[in-house]
């Protein structure tokens, strides 16, 4: 447990910092931080699939988008929807699509699995892009943001910030508990050697499908938060560029660690803001993709285990034996990946 302390403190400190952040930041800062936290939730959802279970899903944007579109489509036009009913519903709908996609995709492996998940995401994209259901390329506006009583009015930025923070914390804690549970340990075993798990007596398909559904649901939660924050959804939320970005975020942060998803989301967003800043780059700021691209290349070249591996890389420590208590996170001493 002693090896756990620095990681635990880091996470605790991060959430504490996020909690007090609104007191020192202006409107722009709160807005940006809310957006980053939403992407952190999305990143966590993908981390469960990729880092823990070894399933590289390239269609996460679909579940994200379904959560968002459901939020808008199911909100009444005459008054605010109730958060208590709308949020679970959106999560469930996203999870339902994940059930369908997972049930079919898990019949394939490796790169083929990646592409089938992409295909299903593209199908969802085209449904909202080309049919009247999703309002087409113009997107749809959320007329009134949801609320629950007087204390939870998500129309107010600070309330939204705290609510998002609570969702992020809740997701993190949930996934942390899941990771150390029997279910989480089984997923880690499936990632390392699915054949051995089967030979031992685990029916691996239901486990993978369950992970897929949970992941989809959490992505739907992120979609709900995004739709509420921006008050607007459009088909680009379901594009493969988003799926790709989330994947990039968790690889950048470091696979196999929940905090990797957090770090990746913040690092990616902050890097974008940095390179986009005209104050620093002046005229060149409109070519911010260049700086971002070079940074990504450099980070992979220099940090093979992602940003989360920086402390161990700096201290030159070799990974020691994992005690039974630190399994799902330790299982990725090597960054997990799907082997085609």
């Amino acid at each position: 447990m002693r090896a756990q302390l620095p990681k635990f403190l880091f996470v605790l400190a991060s959430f504490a910092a996020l909690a007090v952040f609104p007191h020192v930041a202006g409107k722009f800062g709160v807005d940006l931080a809310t957006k980053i936290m939403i992407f952190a939730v999305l990143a966590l959802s993908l981390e469960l699939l990729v880092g823990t279970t070894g399933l590289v899903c390239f269609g996460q944007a679909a579940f994200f988008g379904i959560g968002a579109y459901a939020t808008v489509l199911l909100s009444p036009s005459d008054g605010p929807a109730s958060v208590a009913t709308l949020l679970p519903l959106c999560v469930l709908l996203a999870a339902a699509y994940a059930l369908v996609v997972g049930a079919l995709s898990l019949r394939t492996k490796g790169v083929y699995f990646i592409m089938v998940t992409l295909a299903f995401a593209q199908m969802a994209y085209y449904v909202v892009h080309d049919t009247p259901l999703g309002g087409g390329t113009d997107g749809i506006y959320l007329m009134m943001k949801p609320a629950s009583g007087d204390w939870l009015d998500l129309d107010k930025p600070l309330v939204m910030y705290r609510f998002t923070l609570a969702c992020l914390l809740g997701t993190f804690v949930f996934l942390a508990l899941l990771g150390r549970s029997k279910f989480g340990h089984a997923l880690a075993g499936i990632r390392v050697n699915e054949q051995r798990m089967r030979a031992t007596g685990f029916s691996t398909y239901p486990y993978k499908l369950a992970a897929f559904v949970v992941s989809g649901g959490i992505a739907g939660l992120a979609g709900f938060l995004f739709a509420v924050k921006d008050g607007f959804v459009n088909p680009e939320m379901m594009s493969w560029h988003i799926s790709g970005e989330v994947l990039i975020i968790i690889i950048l942060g470091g696979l196999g660690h929940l905090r990797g998803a957090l770090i990746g989301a913040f690092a990616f967003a902050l890097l974008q803001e940095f390179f986009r800043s005209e104050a620093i780059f002046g005229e060149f700021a409109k070519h911010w993709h260049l700086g971002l691209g070079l940074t990504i290349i450099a980070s992979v070249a220099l940090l093979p285990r992602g940003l989360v591996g920086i402390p161990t890389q700096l201290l030159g420590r070799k990974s020691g034996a994992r005690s039974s208590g630190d399994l799902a996170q330790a299982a990725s001493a090597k960054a997990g990946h799907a082997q085609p």
Partner: protein
Amino acid sequence: MDLTTFLIQCLNALQYGLLLFLVASGLTLIFGIMGVINLAHGSFYMIGAYMAFALAPFVAATVGGGFFTTLLFGLILAVALGYLLEWAFYSFLYTREHLQQVLMTYGLILVFEELRSLLVGDDVHGVQAPDFLSGSIPLGDMMTYPVYRLFISGVCLLLALCMYFVFAKTRLGMMIRAGSTNREMVQSLGIDIKFLYRVVFAAGVAIAVLAGMVAAPVSSVYPGMGSLVLIICFVVVVIGGIGSIRGALLASLLIGVVDTFGKVLLPQVAGVLVYVLMAGILLWKPDGLFKAG
């Protein structure tokens, strides 16, 4: 649909399919032989298209050449670019895990997009086909078909035949095929695997660039063209089976037909048809239509 329209759509499907095949074959080779997932492959296609646009006046001014000279110039530049890229960047990816390759080549996409933006700008451009290829040939009583599209199909077919010849009949092709199944053995036979990889990579890049150049008059030149072609190419490679050129050809033609006829017969769902096709094929044959070979 009458016969002439059907024929026109068939020709369109053939042209689109063959063009896809050119780009996808480079992707499947690089993935199948070197084990590298290259997300930036679509960027090479985009680079080719922008080269057709940007090089033409330059070539006309300096050498006085026309369309084919521009193509030649572009091809030489592409081979040089491919060679350089492999040496400076991709050769470091062979030992990396696939997800790291994904991340690095994603970074490369961003770099390419911005370099293009800096050098040539972000505008959409049209490229003129050379005069002698700009006509149309009559089809049936009332329809005509653009000669240039036939030219595209012809070029692609020619290149495909060249590739077949190299793979099946030359020593280089044999080494490439051997290198894809057993890297160490090929090395122990004294064949310089590094050189082999460099050649394969440069060829893959050159073919993709050439495809972009040749397609430019028909598809026009715009910033997002790389990502679009990339996704479809991955679909081709996956349907056809990773590393299989034969599979890439079959899959490209299949997609060409489905996409072209889909746009005409079912325009509402045309965009999604290709993905439905892919999902369907993979659920039937989870390893693609052909295994490597």
